[in-house]
């Protein structure tokens, strides 16, 4: 069970959280201008890396805040948690 460092509450058991999938996927500003393929890309396509992954978590049974986490999908290590209004702490090429 992961120990997730909520930026607001500190480290808490995974059982207090729910998972939100890959982070930094912005909803298109004008969905109706997108092709079906572009809309499908927003909806369904994810990077699914083996390694560092930026993802959304919700402290559902705590402060009820969404935030982002950098978690390694191979080792499950978590190296950072950051608020939605913060920039990712590691550069893209470190992922």
């Amino acid at each position: 069970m992961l120990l997730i460092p909520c930026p607001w509450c500190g480290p808490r058991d995974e059982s207090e959280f729910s998972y939100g999938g890959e982070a930094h996927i912005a909803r298109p500003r004008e969905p109706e201008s997108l092709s079906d393929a572009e809309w499908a890309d927003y909806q369904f396509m994810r990077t699914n890396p083996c390694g560092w992954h930026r993802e959304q978590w919700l402290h559902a049974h705590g402060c009820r805040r969404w935030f982002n986490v950098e978690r390694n999908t191979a080792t499950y290590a978590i190296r950072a948690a950051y608020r939605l209004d913060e920039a990712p702490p590691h550069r893209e090429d470190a992922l």
Partner: protein
Amino acid sequence: MNQPRRLEQGGLVDRERPVGFRFDGREMQGYAGDTLASALLANGVNVVNRSIKLHRPRGIVGHGAEEPNALLQIDRGAATLPDRRATQTELYEGLEARPAVGRPERDPAAAMGALSPFMPAGFYYKTFMSPRGWWERYEQVIRPAAGFGYAPDGPDPDIYDRRNAHCDVLVAGGGPAGLQAALSAARGGARVILADEQARFGGGLLASEARIDGGPALVWVDAMVAELAAMPEVTLLPRTAVFGNYDHGFVGLVERLGDHVPPQQRTGPRERYWRVRSRQLVIAAGAIERPIVFGNNDRPGIMMASAVTTYIRRYGVLPGRKAVVFTNNDSAYATVAALRAAGASVVVADAREEPGALAAAARQQGVDVRAGSAVLSAHGRKHVTAVTVGDLARHRHERLDCDLVAVSGGWNPAVHLHSHIRGPLRFDHDLAAPVPAPGPEHVRSAGACAGRFDLAEVLAAGAHAGAAAAGALGFEGAVAAVPDTQGADPVPGALRVLWRAPQPPEGKAPAFVDLQNDVKTSDLALAVREGYRSIEHVKRYSIMGFGTDQGRLGNIVGAGIVAELLGADLETVGTTTFRPAWTPVTYGALAGEELRELFQPVRNTPMHEWHVARGATFEDVGQWKRAWYYPRPGESMDDAVRRECLATQRGIGALDYSTLGKIDIQGPDAVTLLERVYTNNWQKLAVGRCRYGIMLDENGTPIDDGVTARLGEQHYLMYTTTGGAARVLAWLERWLQTEWPQLEVYLTSVTDHWATLSLAGPYSRDLVRDLGTDVDLDPQAFPFMSVREGHVAGIPARLQRSSFSGELTFEVSVPADYGLWLWEKAFELGEPYGITPYGTETMHVLRAEMGFIIVGQDTDGSVSPLDLGMHGLLSNRKDFLGKRSLARPDFQREDRPQFVGLQPEDPETIVPEGAQLVRNPDQTTPVPLEGWVTSSYYGARIGRSFALAMVNGGRERYGERLIAWDLDAGAIPVTVTAPSFYEPPQG
């Protein structure tokens, strides 16, 4: 009572304290300090179980967690435990044990053994594949003959505890390495938990004649335990298995608090599940001796060498007087010494051509040591009576009478806990086994589980591991002193790798790799012949290492044999993945007290007790208990629902509507939020008005619906479905936080704050007036789909005119604590109007007569609002969640299933929900599917049965006759109609 195999003296059992127990109906006696296994051996019991597939007689093989055979059913009734390893079951007065499979002596299915050659791996899959569909029939015959153990015959009467704990250093295993590690870490100031699955700390020292610091090893153990027990930051957990090592320092432990006590004397919880977050973990789990495979190597009386040593030294039990020790390494010479000291005769078959100094010393003492030899096969059926011993070159062989075979094929470090969190393994060529490689930083293995067997080295390694773990957390290093040792047992040195003995001269005999699952060498050979290469695939095909055994005893040997068969080396073949749990954990321990009423909170409305008193039946909607219907004496559910339906049409029907989800939405951007999450327009909704809305996910699928009222300029109250309230709140919060943080909107769940009475029927206005209100009830002043704030019966109230039934309806919401009072007042004053309580079933009928959907019943994840005919609710003016998906070509198809009504030709026939719609059920299969029924009732107000359904291109098919087909109800003719049945009254 005699214990024929009990030695006169020696061991840790107390001969002054006899303990009576029963095995398979026979009265027996052991001593305090025995396990069930040692007591059975002392009593001369050879066969303790039957094997799962072939029903071969099986005896005790090991002395701990690795035991594959002695899985016994402990005690009877609701508290019985199936598949308990006798080797880990402490004996208590009155314990009753029986085999988990078959009967030990006269087993009705013993003939299965003769079929062994005809039942290789995959036998069931290959044999019972045809004719198609017959597996269910075969299964009825096969299942009763298979399986381990018997289920309890009632709910578990025991209670189970759960505890969360944090520590700096968790030490798994309380042998010499674990004790040293715990003390080193604790002396450095760390908070330490030391857990060991046995009742007594000491691990391998419990069966050792080593001396530590000049005294017996157990004196040293006791001193260590005493020092640890006196330290306030140390928690000692005997009888506690560390069963799982999970991510981020989370470790699962199960403490067996009551299993060693007679059931009637148990107090408090039977087991306790410890959920530990440890910052550092020291694994000191020891090692497991592995067998060498030979013909009929499953005969009772063939045991692991270390088990024989343990039974002699720790329990004072000599499992046989005429022993053959079969080894390929030095460690079994401890068994030779123990057997001789106990008075047994010993012949050693040592696979090594030059067995070395220990063998030479044994020879000098007169032991017959045969170098380069192996046990090729065993003889005897219910107990070994002889073995064929031959040299590995198969030049010579000889039959030796014996009543005990002690086998040592080397040792496998217990890397399980290390592997649970993907700790890497390294192949140790001296041991021919995987050992832990440096893995996750917070985990260290020490002692035998790290491949170190020399006692002095183990003591030093434990001390250093404990100090390093504490040091990594910033505690001052305090390496515990490494004491002097003498007389320790030989380490498994000078190993000659031998996985299986050559075939015996008398021909093939079944040679078992996995005793618990009846997997033979020939099964592995078959798997390889059939093309399996990965050890993971071989495992799954042959079922080697399945079940509660998890390959603790046989997996490395099995992998070694597969490597030989493939012509590869074991390092390349590798091992299967070790996963939690190390040993089985009861469901009781995992569930703890989260049972029955503590499983999930129950939510009752303020009027709940009234419903109970009125004889309502209830249904669960999410966590809520909702009144389902209110039968009068003698009424069926059908009668009650029809009466309740008609009351809303003719008098007043009263519904407890308090469970509906309510989200208070405030802020300057509240309307913008509504615009984005609902499909329709909200900007022009005036204060005091309300509107129905449906929300979609980004796939364009409805996720919830309900009415939202505008209470003020920047203040809305959103109603959700009862079961959807939490989900909708989370949905709104997610979008506000992740995508629209610039919106200034505040959401508050107010579901529990309000009690709501929904009063429906022609006299509902009269009743609200009679209750007394300062709200103008005139239809001009308070029209349909409006909301007003004021007072009702002197209580602050919100009045809303919305309706799912089509009847004149007033929804009266008051602060929750007034709910019951107002409800009772309404029934008091409503009596002249025929006020009638109704429940969720009537609610469903009424809404269905109106053609209103229930999201999740009439819809699923494939249905769009276009399919539902909700085009008028889809705004062209704005974007909303899911809108883009509605433009996808597939959602635009005209022949998609569309929401329609159905009228059965017989107005009394109710079509089963879920029935399939076809044109002609007598067509040749596959019959084309035209749709399916989503809701179906008898509509009392319309005086006939009706249904809602999804029908392909249904909106163009009104008037068409279809057949609803259901397995039980058969064919029911129906006519497709518009999804609306009830004509609401005017006003």
